[in-house]
């Protein structure tokens, strides 16, 4: 057992999978010599060399497309997008190529790759270093989209993604990188189910559905409310955004009758829309109250100046507020 951060869990997962399977390779901007702008690939260039840790040209489209081709040819690419904000040049590669290759070829051609994408705000990054953009891909069948919210998942889901026979987009929240630590078992067989949500905290009064950094905020809010009022909030960590594990949150809702969805992405067509819509369709009789979404407001992106960013982002206080109102409905 060792106490590790979210980001070192990522590095470890990459290292272990690269040692385990020589078909695994990394490609992206600054991933090699520099070890990544956040140091997620630190040390891998030294261990595996320039052939397996490729500093690509500044072109996200070719980073992903080259990975698609290499995956078709039997390798296991782990491309990286430095910031989710810069994923647009790879939009075609992801949505028209990777997502549809298996389908359009009737299952005869596939491209199992794992795209790591750094996303999220709250670190003063402003409009173009804070975006989420998961909706674009959660909306695309054929892609698996995961977003680990714990250190154990950061490791186990990345390893599982690399071994998965589908294109996976792995969204890692930059604010989690160094802010959370967990004890993790050593050894390279620490692989997590990619397709199941997880109940992170049990409770009978309200189902709080979230993922990523807001999972941490939600857990804090739940503890706080418990301490203050005795309320028992069940916190569901989505973990996978596409295809969604509906059962976990619907089972919880069947128990609690109330649902609060929290995410950092803005409201309209954020993943919360789908969660709410599923609940309103498949668990209507379970509902004792409106389904509430606590999200960023519908503005183009996280503005830079501190008070604006604060206004934009969910916080423990905002969650407590929304949950309290919903409990009192």
């Amino acid at each position: 057992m060792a106490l590790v951060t979210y980001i070192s869990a990522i590095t470890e997962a990459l290292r272990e999978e690269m040692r385990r399977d020589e078909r695994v390779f990394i490609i992206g901007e600054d991933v090699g010599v520099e070890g990544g702008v956040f140091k997620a690939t630190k040390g891998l260039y030294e261990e595996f060399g320039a052939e397996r840790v490729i500093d690509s040209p500044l072109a996200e489209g070719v980073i992903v497309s080259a990975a698609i081709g290499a995956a078709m040819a039997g390798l296991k690419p782990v491309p990286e997008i430095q910031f989710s904000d810069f994923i647009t040049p790879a939009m075609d590669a992801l949505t028209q190529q990777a997502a549809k290759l298996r389908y359009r070829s009737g299952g005869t051609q596939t491209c199992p790759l794992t795209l790591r994408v750094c996303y999220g705000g709250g670190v003063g990054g402003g409009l173009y270093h804070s975006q989420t953009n998961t909706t674009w891909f959660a909306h695309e069948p054929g892609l698996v989209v995961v977003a680990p919210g714990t250190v154990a998942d950061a490791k186990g889901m990345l390893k599982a993604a690399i071994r998965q026979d589908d294109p996976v987009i792995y969204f890692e929240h930059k604010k989690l990188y160094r802010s959370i630590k967990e004890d993790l078992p050593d050894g390279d067989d620490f692989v997590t189910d990619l397709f199941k949500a997880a109940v992170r905290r049990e409770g009978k009064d309200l189902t709080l559905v979230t993922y990523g950094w807001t999972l941490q905020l939600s857990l804090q809010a739940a503890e706080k409310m418990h301490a203050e009022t005795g309320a028992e909030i069940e916190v569901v960590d989505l973990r996978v955004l596409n295809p969604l594990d509906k059962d976990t949150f619907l089972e919880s809702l069947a128990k609690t009758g109330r649902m609060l969805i929290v995410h950092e992405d803005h409201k309209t067509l954020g993943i919360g829309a789908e969660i709410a819509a599923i609940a309103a369709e498949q668990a209507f009789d379970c509902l004792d109250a409106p389904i509430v979404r606590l999200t960023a407001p519908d503005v183009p992106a996280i503005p830079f100046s501190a008070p604006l960013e604060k206004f934009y982002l969910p916080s423990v206080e905002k969650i407590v507020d929304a949950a309290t109102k919903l409990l009192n409905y």
Partner: protein
Amino acid sequence: MATKVKEIVDAAAPTNGSPLISNDKLKQLYATMIKCRTLEERARVLFKQSKFTGNYYAAVGQEAAAVGTAIDLRVEDTIGPSHRDFITGFIKGAPLDKMFCHLFARENSPDKGRSSPAHFGYAPLNVITPASTIAAQLNIATGVALANKMKKNDNIAVAYSGDGSTSLGFWHEALNFAGVHDLPIVFVCQNNLWAESVNLQFQTKVPDISVKAAAYGFPGITVDGNDVVAVYRVAQEAIARARRGQGPTLIECKTYRWYGHSEIDPAKYRDPEEVERWKAKDPIAGMERYLMGKGLFSAEWKQGIVDGFNKELDAAIEIAEQSALPQGVEALDHVYSFSIRERVLEPKVYEPEY
């Protein structure tokens, strides 16, 4: 770095150290071209007869470019076709019945009836199933080439695109990346002067697309794309370079599509005179004259090829016509490595537990 090969030279005279082209190869080049033509003209008739629907983009008039570049590829080599490269699958060796099952969107087509007629892929021969996005196949083929380099084998990739495709960023990103890593890939640009209704002059300021290779640090060459011998020789050199690990080549084949962009396009935007001028440069007739000059051609030989091939076509079309269409519910298959049928067809309903 761009050079031009524009005249029909005597194929027997070796240039740049490339070996003599054998008579058998010369005949094979011709025979393959005429088969491609016969195949596509048949497909066009079938389309007019409503035997199949959807988008089909005939390469009639451009056979020399496809045949000259694809004819000698190995099974292990990869082809990245664009929308007008249905025939490259055939040249690489795909079975005709598979190709017609595909055109007819049957259950037993390689893609199980999912892709448009023009988008024929074939996994056993490493023909990438195309998407419509112009130039995307270049980037994917580049990835295959990267894998081949990493695996240290000498397989290569050949990726096709048109003049119009050169305007897209994807085209640029692929060539640039291939250049940086000296990848084993050949980019074949079939410059047929038009991208749908848009003339080359509105596509790019330069008349020769091969000059664009200079931006990526590898050779670009313009070749008379209606001269199959010239194309073949240029392709052989590019392929050999790639196999030797010496990096990519951009081959611009100047050619022309005889018909509309797709089967529903009357192509009124073109001057009929321009069309006639190019039809007079028919690559098949040209090669016929060339073979004739070498005493390698006879009308009977040609008729034999055409007749034999027509029989093959009849048989393949028969199979396709007899084949079943997919069941609607199969639309739910091949989304992921696991099935989603149950999830879609039988959504659970939840009741309160409390």
